[in-house]
């Protein structure tokens, strides 16, 4: 029996260890209530079920442990002989039904509220498009759209900056280059879709999780009363970098939001002008290669890898590829128009002509693809015009 006592002691140590650990980490132990009306209600419902379940557990397991203690052979050498009781069985069928009805009433109410996006008066509509592996946001009322890419540097992910943890920032994997900016206290409707596979857009703090499905549009809504930055992630497995496409929403005051929209509009005009200028002039090899490398590593390396070797056969190598060393036309075509039904997206509208020209030049001259070809922004313009 000594061994049993030791085991119990061991178990006690482990359990108390877990418990003290749990208390220490209690901030991260539970769902956060979040900041919207619906997220708080979801949290309340979550807590309500937890308590109901805990009470049931205490009663059922309590009886069971009592029985384990009191009805062991050493204490109770002759077993009872009863083997059913209609009354008891009816009671313990009825009680759970009542409890479940009690739980389902608030659940139904909240569900109806969360799903009634078409009954709220919209102040702002956003189209959210999932791509492998980034989100695209479009302000439907303002003709502004942009991509939101993971900002965490590769070195942190690959643990290249010294010891693990030391260099990982607070928002490791939950930071992006362009956040989605929303005004506080406004009804925002989201329309979600996808360009490739199914993704799912989740921000825990506002309790919005909805799938982005290719070829379909799913809608949902929120109204965030509190300014702040809220972080979430894609929650539907969407391929290799599913873990690396965070969602960041920044909620600002109404006036800040107006200023933000103005700024974005101005940026758009400036970018168009700069692109036109860039396209008009002729670039030398070095300029093309520098911009090309930079843009390639940001936009293309997730699939084709930094060394151009890809991950065949899923993502083809560009190093020595027929397209990247063959006729320029074909190379421009696949980058501008993509290839339907594959992970290769159309970059014609995502990148400027100068960037596309630079990437293509880079691909045709890097990794031993010494074609010597120089592609100018004007070539891209001409291709698009003739397309």
């Amino acid at each position, binding site marked *: 029996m000594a*061994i049993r006592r030791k*085991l119990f002691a*061991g178990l006690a140590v*482990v359990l108390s260890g877990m418990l003290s650990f749990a208390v220490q980490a209690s901030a*991260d132990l*539970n769902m*956060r209530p979040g900041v919207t009306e619906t997220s708080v*209600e979801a949290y309340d*419902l*979550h807590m309500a*079920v937890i308590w109901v*379940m805990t009470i*049931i*557990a205490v009663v*059922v*397991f309590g009886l069971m442990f009592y029985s*384990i203690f009191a*009805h*062991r*052979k050493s204490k*109770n*050498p002759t*077993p*009872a*002989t009863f*083997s*059913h009781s209609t009354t008891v069985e009816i009671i*313990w*069928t009825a009680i*759970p*039904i009542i409890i*479940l009805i009690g739980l*389902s009433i608030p*659940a139904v109410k909240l*569900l109806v509220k*969360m*799903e009634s996006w078409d009954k709220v008066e919209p102040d702002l509509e956003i189209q959210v498009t999932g791509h492998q592996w980034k989100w695209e946001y479009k302000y439907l009322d303002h003709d502004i759209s942009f991509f939101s890419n993971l900002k965490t540097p590769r070195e942190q992910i690959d*643990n290249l900056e010294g010891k*693990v*943890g030391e260099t990982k920032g*607070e928002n490791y*994997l939950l930071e992006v280059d362009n956040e989605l900016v929303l005004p506080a206290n406004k009804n925002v409707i989201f329309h979600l879709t996808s360009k490739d*596979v*199914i993704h799912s857009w*989740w921000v825990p703090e506002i309790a919005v*999780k909805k799938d982005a*499905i*290719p*070829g379909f549009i799913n809608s949902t809504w929120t109204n965030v009363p509190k300014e702040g930055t809220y972080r979430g*992630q894609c*929650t539907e*497995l969407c*391929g290799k970098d*599913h*873990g690396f496409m965070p969602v960041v929403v920044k909620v600002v005051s109404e006036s800040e939001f107006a200023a933000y929209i103005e700024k974005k509009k101005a940026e758009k005009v400036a970018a168009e002008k700069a692109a036109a200028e860039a396209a008009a002039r002729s670039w030398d090899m070095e300029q093309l290669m520098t911009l090309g490398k930079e843009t390639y590593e940001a936009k293309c390396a997730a699939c084709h890898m930094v060394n151009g070797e890809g*991950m*065949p056969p*899923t993502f083809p190598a560009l190093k020595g590829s027929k397209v990247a060393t063959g006729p320029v036309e074909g190379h421009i075509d696949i980058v501008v128009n993509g290839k339907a039904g*594959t*992970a290769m997206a159309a970059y014609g509208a995502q990148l400027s002509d100068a960037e596309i020209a630079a990437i293509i030049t880079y691909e045709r001259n890097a990794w031993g693809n010494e074609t010597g070809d120089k592609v100018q922004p004007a070539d891209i313009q001409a291709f698009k015009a003739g397309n």
Partner: protein
Amino acid sequence: MADHHPTGIKRWLFTTNHKDIGSMYLWFSFIMFFIGGAMAMVIRAELYQPGLQFVEPNFFNQMTTMHGLIMVFGAVMPSMVGLANWLIPMQIGAPDMALPRMNNWSFWILPFAFTLLLSSLFMEGGAPNFGWTFYAPLSTTYGPPSTDFFILGVHMMGISSIMGAINVIVTVFNMRAPGMTLMKMPLFVWTWVITAFLLIMVMPVLAGAVTMMLTDRHFGTSFFDAAGGGDPVMFQHIFWFFGHPEVYIMILPAFGVASEIIPAFARKKLFGYASMVYATASIALLSFIVWAHHMFTVGMPLAGELFFMIATMLIAVPTGVKVFNWVATMWKGSMTFETPMLFAIAFVILFTIGGFSGVMLAMAPVDFQYHDTYFVVAHFHYVLFPGAIFGTTAAVYYWLPKWTGKMYNEKMGKIHFWWSMIAVNLTFFPMHFSGLAGMPRRIPDYNMMFADFNQLASIGAFALGLSQLFFLFIVIKTIRSGKKSEDKPWDGATGLEWDKLPCPAPYHTFDTPPKVD
């Protein structure tokens, strides 16, 4: 004469004996359990710390996918069929399964199916990487070339399961000993018959799903491609129409095991036999109308969401009845706690914890927060590991003397139990917290705020992996040098296999049917 059997490799290749086939199923499942477990170790090693340490994201996805597929189709399902083969004929007083040749075939398909599936790890482009749920279009348009091998593999294991199920049904309905009426059958037999009906209903649906995938991939159809008029969400409906009953296929036989073991060690009849049968049947029926609770975020109409939410919550009622019946069986019994009983009690407690999180997940508006996070991973591991796996483990300890004529070492069994019990909770309980804190499932890297719980889970996982190796050691030791078992090692055990047969059970049993009164 009774114990004559062929020897050597031919015995195993050509055998039509339910005991041989049962053993092969069990060993096969044990091997798959370790292969799938090794993959879980890769996953947990990568998740031990934030950052990418050991594997690339794409390989990580292959590991989660193969781990899930192998555990579900290779470890749990065959283990249940193995138990059915060994036990059903003995428990109903039949000489063998009704269709012995088909029995041989349904087993021998499996090694080929899984060789096919596992070989995809070595193919160009790697193994399937789209999760065990293989949602389109990630698995169709975007799937690696090895997806076709996966499809063929699924077809093969589906055929095997259907044949196994047919065999159980035919056996039970035609070969019961005189006097063994339906309502006298042991609960293990009952739960298996119901499971067999589930299998026959849903495995063809799975076959349909993978066939549609195949034609979408290669023959120009677009069942799941919106560009051709199809719908990727339809894939999910079809998959989960199979998938939800599938989870009951994995757990119902374990319910049956618990309903045999708890009365034996409480030395008291099972409480509420009839309500146990009806509860099992209602769970099975309800399992056909709850599938879309896995899909609350896909954008179903509100009415659909309400229906699936309510239907799912309803399943808690018959499940509760079962748990209460087990507790009532223990009540005022005269209990001892040998290893099978310990595993059976742990099964009841931990499965019930999985049931609690199941009710939470059923509530659609809150499920929006839980869905596809580690909370779900915690939930289904509570019902699968301490559920299905502990159920099988309890069965192995309980019937090992019947199968081998040898008794396992009780002290080692207890060590195995406590070791697994602590490790399983250390592994899977923290996953509730990382899920609630916001960690999505199927990711190879995570923010620092999830680090503590992941580290804890990984430590638990390594301990759990080792505990299962210890189990293997115990089983082998018992077979090779275990003490000879008495004919009835458990004084509280009832049923034909204990009352009418010695330990070990001879190669051929019940050539003349026993009389049941």
